[in-house]
C-alpha cells in the first residue's frame, strides 16, 4: 500500500512538474504585462507630442530625418500576407537596411516582417489572434503595423485595434493628394480615418485588339467604348461577339466587381442581409449571358478562367486594374495576348476598383513616430511615389503625380499596344463612391458568387441559390438574419 502511494506520488510529481512548466510561462507573461502597458501608454503620449509640434511647423523638414522618436520601441513588428509591402519599403523607404528577407533595420530599430499567406483566411486568423492578445503582449511582441485589403478593411478599421492616423500626427492636408475612395474604405463608422494606402486600383475593361478589329472593324478605345458604354449595350455586344465565336468576358464573376462597387445600399441593414438592386441586376444580366453561352461561370484565377489570356481562349475582355494586366495575365509568357501587346483599355460600363493594400497602425504600438514617417513617405512623398510608378508599375495614390503622368506622351504600356491608360484610370477613380461598405463584405461577396454559380450552371433556380447564399452567410456571421 505504501509503495502504491509512493508511485502515485511520483506520478503526481511528474505531472505537476509538467503543468508547472506551463504555469511558469503564463506567470512570466502576466508579469511582463505591467511594464508592457506602461510603456505603451508612454509611447502614446510621445506620439501626441510630436503631432502637436508638427501642426505648428509643418515645414520642419529636418524633423523628417530622425524617423525614430526618442524612447520608442526598438522592434517594429509588421504583419502582412505577401512581400509586396516589404519590397516597397526595401526599395523606396529611405534608411531601410535589409538583414534578411524577414528582418531589417531602420536606424537602430529592427524591423520584423511577419508574413502569413492569405490562403484559407490564414492571414486574418493569425492577425485576429495576435490583435486580441495585443494588450497583454510584451512591448516588443506587439503588432505595430499591419496591412489590410478593401474587402475586409472595416472589420479592423471599425474597432479600437487600429489607431486613427490623426493620433499619429498625420493631418488631413498631408493626405490631400490622395484619392477619396482610398480614404472612404478605411474610415470607420464615426468618420475617423484609420489607415492609408500608397496605391490606387481603379479598374477598366481590357479587350483584345485583334478580336475588336475582326468583329467591330476597329480597335480604337474610344470607338469600342461605344459598344460597352452601359450594361444594356454591353449585353447586346455580347450577342454580336457570340455570333463571331467569342465570349465577351471569361466569367460572370469578371463583371461582379463592376456591379458590386456601384451599389446604393449595404450588404447588411439593421442586422438583416440585404441584396442591393445592382447586385440583382448582375444576377439577371449574367444569367441571360450564361444561358446564351456568351459568358462562362469559372471561378476567378482558375485555369479555365485564365484560358482567355491566350488567343485560343476566345475571350474578348477582362475587367481589372493595372496590376491585373501587368502581372496576372501571362504577359511574360510567349504567345499570350499581353506578350504581343494585344490588349487595349477602355472605361467599360461603370467605374470600379479591385484590390489595393492599406497600412494601419495597431493600437498599443510603441513606434508611433516611425509608423507616421513610413506612412508619410510611402503614401504622400511625391518623389518616392513616382519612383514606385517607374520601378513597380503601380498606380500610386497621388492625384497630381498620376495626372501629370497621364498627360505624359512618353509613358505608354507595351502590353496595351502602346496606349497610355493612366487618364482612364484617373477618370475612373474619381467617380468611385464607396460609402456602402460593411464589415460583412468579404463573406457576402464570396458566398454570393459561389451561390450564384449554381444558378448560372442550372443546378437550381434563383430562389434556391438565394437560399444557399443566406445559409452560407449566416454560417459565417451567426448574428445576421434574413
Amino acid at each position, binding site marked *: 500500500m505504501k509503495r502504491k502511494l509512493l*508511485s502515485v506520488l511520483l506520478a503526481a510529481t511528474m505531472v505537476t512538474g509538467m503543468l508547472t512548466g506551463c504555469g511558469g510561462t503564463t506567470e512570466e507573461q502576466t508579469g511582463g504585462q505591467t511594464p508592457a502597458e506602461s510603456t505603451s501608454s508612454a509611447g502614446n503620449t510621445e506620439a501626441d507630442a510630436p503631432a502637436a509640434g508638427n501642426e505648428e511647423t509643418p515645414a520642419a523638414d529636418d524633423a523628417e530625418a530622425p524617423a525614430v522618436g526618442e524612447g520608442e520601441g526598438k522592434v517594429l513588428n509588421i504583419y502582412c500576407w505577401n512581400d509586396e509591402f516589404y519590397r516597397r519599403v526595401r526599395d523606396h523607404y529611405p534608411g531601410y537596411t535589409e538583414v534578411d528577407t524577414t528582418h531589417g533595420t531602420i536606424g537602430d530599430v529592427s524591423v520584423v516582417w511577419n508574413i502569413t499567406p492569405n490562403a484559407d483566411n490564414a492571414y486574418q486568423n493569425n492577425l485576429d489572434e495576435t490583435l486580441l492578445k495585443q494588450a497583454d503582449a510584451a512591448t516588443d511582441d506587439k503588432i505595430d503595423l499591419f496591412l489590410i485589403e478593401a474587402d475586409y478593411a472595416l472589420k479592423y478599421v471599425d*474597432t479600437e485595434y487600429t489607431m486613427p492616423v490623426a493620433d499619429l500626427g498625420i493631418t488631413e492636408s498631408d493626405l490631400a493628394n490622395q484619392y477619396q475612395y482610398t480614404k472612404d474604405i478605411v474610415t470607420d463608422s464615426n468618420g475617423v480615418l484609420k489607415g492609408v494606402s500608397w496605391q490606387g486600383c481603379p479598374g477598366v475593361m481590357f479587350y483584345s485588339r485583334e478580336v475588336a478589329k475582326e468583329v467591330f472593324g476597329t480597335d480604337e478605345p474610344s470607338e469600342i467604348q461605344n459598344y460597352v458604354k452601359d450594361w444594356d449595350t454591353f449585353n447586346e455586344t455580347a450577342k454580336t461577339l457570340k455570333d463571331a465565336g467569342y465570349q465577351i468576358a471569361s466569367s460572370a464573376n469578371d463583371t461582379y466587381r463592376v456591379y458590386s462597387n456601384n451599389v446604393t445600399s449595404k450588404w447588411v441593414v439593421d442586422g438583416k442581409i440585404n441584396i442591393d438592386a445592382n447586385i440583382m441586376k448582375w444576377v439577371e444580366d449574367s444569367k441571360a449571358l450564361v444561358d446564351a453561352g456568351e459568358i462562362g461561370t469559372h471561378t476567378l484565377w482558375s485555369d479555365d478562367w485564365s484560358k482567355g489570356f491566350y488567343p485560343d481562349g476566345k475571350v474578348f475582355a477582362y475587367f481589372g486594374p493595372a496590376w491585373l494586366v501587368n502581372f496576372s495575365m501571362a504577359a511574360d509568357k510567349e504567345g499570350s495576348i499581353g506578350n504581343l501587346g494585344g490588349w487595349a483599355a477602355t472605361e467599360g460600363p461603370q467605374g470600379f476598383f479591385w484590390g489595393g493594400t492599406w497600412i494601419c497602425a495597431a493600437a498599443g504600438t510603441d513606434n508611433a513616430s516611425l509608423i507616421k514617417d513610413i506612412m508619410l513617405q510611402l503614401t504622400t512623398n511625391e518623389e518616392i511615389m513616382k519612383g514606385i510608378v517607374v520601378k513597380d508599375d503601380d498606380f500610386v495614390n497621388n492625384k497630381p503625380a498620376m495626372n501629370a503622368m497621364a498627360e505624359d506622351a512618353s509613358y505608354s504600356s507595351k502590353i496595351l499596344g502602346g496606349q497610355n491608360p493612366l487618364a482612364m484610370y484617373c477618370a475612373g477613380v474619381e467617380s468611385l463612391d464607396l460609402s456602402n461598405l460593411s464589415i460583412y463584405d468579404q463573406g457576402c461577396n464570396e458566398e454570393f458568387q459561389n451561390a450564384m454559380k449554381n444558378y448560372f450552371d442550372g443546378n437550381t433556380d434563383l430562389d434556391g441559390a438565394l437560399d444557399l447564399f443566406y445559409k452560407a452567410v449566416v454560417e459565417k456571421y451567426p*448574428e445576421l438574419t434574413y
Partner: protein
Amino acid sequence: MKNGKRGKVVSYNKWGYIFLIPFIVVYLVFQFIPLITTVVNSLYENYRSGLTQIGPNFIGFENYVSILKNKDLWTYTQNTLIMWVMGFVPQILVSLLLGAWFSNPSLKLKGQRFFKTVIYLPNLIMASAFAMLFFTLFSDSGPINSILVQLGIFDQPFKFLSNIWSTRTLVALMNFLMWFGNTTILLMAGMMGVDTALFEAAEVDGATSSQVFFKITLPLLRPIMVYVMITSLIGGLQMFDVPQILTSGTGDPMRSTMTLIMYLNRHLFSKNYGMAGALSVLLFIVTGILSVIVYKMTNGKEE
C-alpha cells in the same frame, strides 16, 4: 530480508506506472480535455463577429435544438453516406478479389510484393494533394476533357464539377483509390489466418474455387469484414479533405457534396465553438455507438 524481497517485486509495479505516464499525459492533454471542453462549449453561445467576441453565454441545449431542427443536417448526413457507399462498395469488392488472389498459394502469383506496395501507394499521398490533382485533371478545360473531346465522345467539355453525380463520383473514386490497398491488406491478413487444412479438405472433396471462396473463406472472414466495414464507416462519417479541396469548401453543386465535417468546418470561420461543438458531440455519439458494435462483434466471438 523479507522486506527487501517484497520491495523488489513492488518496484517493478512502480516502473509500470512510470511508463504509463507519457501515454496518460498525452491522452489527457490531447484527447480527454478537448473532449470535455467540446461538450462544455456545445452548451454555450460563443462566436466571434469580426473582432468582437460574443459570449460565451450559457444557453443549455439550444445549439443542439437548432442543429437537429435544421433540415440541412440530414442532407449533409445523406451526402456523406452516399459518397461513402459509392466508394466503399467497389472498395470491398476489389479488395476481396485481390485478397483472395494474393492469399491463394495455388495461384503462385509473381511479384506479389511489388503489387502489394503499388496498391497501397495512393494512401501515402496526402488526400489534399490527391484532390488538387483531380481538380486539375477534371476541370472544364483540363486534360480529361480534352481527351474526351478529341476522341469524339463529347462535343464540348463536360463540366464534371458542376454536376451533382459526377462530383460525387469523383469523391467516391478518390476515396476508393486511396483506401482499397489498405482494405486488401487487412482482408488478406484475415484470409491467411484461415486454417489451410480447410482449403485442402475442400479441394479433396472436389469443391470449385468459387465454392471455396463463398463457402469457406467468406464465412470465416466475417469478423474481419465487420471490422473493416465499421472502421470504414467511421472514417467515412469523418470524410473531409477530399471534398473540401475538390470543391474549395463550397460543397458545390448546391451543397450536394457537403459532408458533416465540412459543415462543421464552416462554423469555424466565425469561431462558432458552440454550434461546432454541438455538431461534434452528435458525431461523437454516432461514432461511439458504431465502435461499441465493433467491440461486441469482435469480442463476442471468442466467448
